[in-house]
């Protein structure tokens, strides 16, 4: 079988930062080809080059034997390459269907969009690929991140691509949707397309990929058949070092002190009657199918949107109507939000400004900020989380996806709040750092922090959380502990009634 896509010695620099240095990549039609590498390795940059969004400084690409040098994304689309971008390429003010068919809408004789045809095409596309049902006529801004992710996939598929690129397309998806996407990718490959698959979830990669290419520091370090290689080798190639274990040892560190007590907590019709105690020293997992109230729980606890019921924080009743009321130093609550680009990061501001935005008073004396103290905090956090940034002054928006997530995590840690609301904190983070973050969570718990932890990856909940609270239709369906805390049990509790309903 001949190679469909062949890239050699691709180089891309951003000022002083080298994103890619002579990276090679080759893939065949009809395969799922995984592209792996730690955060900032250059995967997304490579994808953007293929997508025509970025022009390389050097190197050559051939597509089906002929030179391929897209001048802009449009040209890439015409060549049959459809990317699902890590940062998504959706427009908040267009509807779902307008987003999917953007730039290739069905046109009438007077060159206007045929709404009926577009609706039919959307439903047909959804049905053909068994998409989760999402109303095609809503504005995209009303969708959750997971829903947006799905629409981005639909958008790519709408072009019937020869090459489908999935850049961390599963990072915001729950187990079921992930399963669906893997099936979909497999199906496309079997039908003769090339699927380039980027993910930090090795399990998925193993399940689906035929071959794997690994990038490190912008260069290709390895390429192999999935069958012929074990996880340890892949991880070592990615990180450039060995990693002992992903999940930390779980020691019971929780005390009897209730850090966060909820009674009759609810958010309009989406969440109700939640009674829950989060203890000091505990990592309490939250699970559930997408859209069953997890994000409402986290946001409402942080003072976003209204809520009802009582909230006790460290034994005292507390009203939280805004993030400002939540973030009250060591006694407060801090959140890693779901939507990092719209809620978590000032993309146009530096890493430093982002990290310290919530804690300016920590380095302010007599009303004047002290750059040295700020610098110390920032440097420490960059080192702790291994944030890959040229300097602390690099704009957050130019960091790799995983490193953006690390900045948000660091920003939350700096608040010193001892109740942490972690909504999918490891989304898009590479295995190496993931392990470190889990370790950090356990260490913090041991220090008396209380952590509420949602993850779209059930394995993380099972291995890191002490207990897991499962939500179903906005209600608490079960609290699983010990033996009960397994992926199977979580899924059972989360879905049992959904089927019936």
């Amino acid at each position, binding site marked *: 079988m001949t190679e469909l896509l062949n890239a050699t010695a691709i180089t891309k620099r951003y000022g002083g930062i080298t994103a890619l240095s002579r990276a090679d990549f080759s893939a065949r039609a009809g395969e799922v080809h995984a592209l792996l590498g730690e955060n900032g390795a250059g995967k997304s940059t490579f994808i953007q080059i293929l*997508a025509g*969004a970025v022009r390389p400084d050097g190197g050559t690409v051939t597509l089906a034997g002929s030179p391929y040098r897209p001048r*802009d*994304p*449009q040209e890439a*689309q015409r060549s049959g390459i459809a990317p699902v*971008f890590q*940062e*998504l*390429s*959706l*427009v*908040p*003010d*267009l509807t779902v269907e*307008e987003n999917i068919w*953007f*730039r290739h*809408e069905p*046109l009438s004789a*007077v*060159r*206007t*969009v045929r*709404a009926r045809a577009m609706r039919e095409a959307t439903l047909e596309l959804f*049905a053909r690929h*068994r*998409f*989760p*049902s*999402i*109303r095609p006529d*809503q*504005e995209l801004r*009303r969708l*959750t991140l*997971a*829903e947006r992710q*799905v629409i981005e996939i639909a*958008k790519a598929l709408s072009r019937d691509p020869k090459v489908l690129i999935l850049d961390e397309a599963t990072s915001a998806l*729950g187990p*079921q*949707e992930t*399963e*669906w996407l893997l*099936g979909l990718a497999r199906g496309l490959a079997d039908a003769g397309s090339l699927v380039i698959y980027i993910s930090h979830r090795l399990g998925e990669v193993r399940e689906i990929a035929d071959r794997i290419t690994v990038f490190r520091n912008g260069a290709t370090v390895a390429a192999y058949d999935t069958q012929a290689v074990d996880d340890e080798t892949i991880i070592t190639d990615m990180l450039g070092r060995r990693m002992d274990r992903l999940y930390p040892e779980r020691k019971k560190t929780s005390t009897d002190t209730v850090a966060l007590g909820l009674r009759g907590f609810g958010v309009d*019709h989406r969440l109700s009657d939640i009674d829950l105690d989060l203890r000091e020293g505990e990592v309490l997992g939250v699970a559930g*199918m*997408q*859209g*069953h109230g997890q994000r409402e729980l986290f946001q409402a606890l942080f003072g976003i*949107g*209204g809520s009802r019921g009582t909230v006790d924080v460290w034994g005292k009743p507390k009203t939280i109507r805004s993030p400002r009321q939540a973030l009250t130093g060591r006694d407060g609550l801090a959140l890693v939000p779901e939507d990092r680009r719209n809620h978590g990061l000032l993309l146009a501001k530096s890493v430093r400004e982002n990290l310290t935005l919530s804690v300016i008073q920590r380095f302010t004396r007599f009303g004047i900020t002290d750059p040295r103290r700020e610098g110390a905090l920032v440097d420490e956090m960059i080192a702790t989380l291994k944030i890959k940034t040229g300097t602390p002054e690099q704009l957050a928006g130019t960091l790799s996806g995983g490193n953006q997530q690390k900045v948000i995590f660091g920003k939350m840690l700096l608040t010193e709040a001892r109740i942490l609301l972690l909504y999918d904190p490891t989304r898009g983070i590479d295995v190496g750092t993931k392990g470190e973050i889990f370790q950090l969570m356990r260490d913090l718990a041991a220090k008396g922090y209380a952590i509420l932890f949602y993850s779209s990856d059930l394995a993380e909940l099972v291995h890191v959380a002490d207990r897991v609270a499962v939500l179903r*239709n*906005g209600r608490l369906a079960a609290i699983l502990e010990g033996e009960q805390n397994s992926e199977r049990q979580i899924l059972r509790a989360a*879905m049992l009634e*959904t089927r019936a*309903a």
Partner: protein
Amino acid sequence: MTVATSSPSELAHRPSRAAIWKSALLDRASLIIPCVMLIGLLLVYASLRDGVFTLDELNLDTAAAMTLILAATGQTIVLLRGGIDLSIGGMISLGTVLAATRFGTDPAQAAAWAFGIVAIGGLVGALNGILITALRLQPFLVTLATWSILSGTAMIILPTDGGSLPSGWTMFGVSTKLGLSSSVWLLAVLLVFWIWFKRTRLGIAIRATGSNERSAFLSGVSPIGINIATYGLSGIFAALAALYLTTQTGAGSPTIGKDYILPSVAAAVIGGISLFGGRGGLVGTIIGAFILTIIGNLVFVLEVSSYWQPIVSGIILLVAVLASSIAEKSARRSLS
């Protein structure tokens, strides 16, 4: 609906009908609210003056608002793109002086120049678009500069108000068909244009680029192309506004254009268009322009003493916008 075994469950549980309605209303709040505002103003106005709900009133008010509406149409397109166009001030002035000095008495010559003026508007706008993209300058600065350059050109052609237009030309606004003045018909044409335009690929791309520039680019929108089209259209509508204006004034003026810069933005913003791009449409802008015009009528029939006139019009504007902002805010809160 087909439920296949490998299809994931629905991402979210189904919203109720009421919730769907509510979100549909909310999506249109920025249009509904100015509508309510306008209706409220009209009711107050009608209680103070006879014959408000007649064709005559419609004809008069449309003529009064039409130049602003045309200017604001271009501005709307630019605002949807997330930009701003101050140069319409210069283009309107230039358009009126060209018309007043070049039309002559020969209808053919006048028609040729009318097309010429529209073409100049498009070219100047396209130039704005090119400068903004190529120099990566803020639209505010580029169009501030071209506003000045166009005004200067207008002033060289005609140093002060004057010139003349063919007598048939100034009859345009007065002539009626089926009881409706040609201004009303023009408005109808404009609405038809908009219904068409907003559903073209270009119309969608302009809105999308204003909503999220990066996403639009990744989806295949050409940055320079979109700017040329956006500002070009704005220039064309400024030229049309100039031509319409001359039917009302029968003369050229090298300074008259600046009167439409801020009001064109205000009309659009009242009509629900965000300066940050992406949201709103021409219908809102037209309503905004009528609101501004009706406020003038209202202050007239209120017969307030002359010094109080600006205060009263300011307060009416503020109260109307405040009421709508509060309504929209509480609607949003009740939803999420």
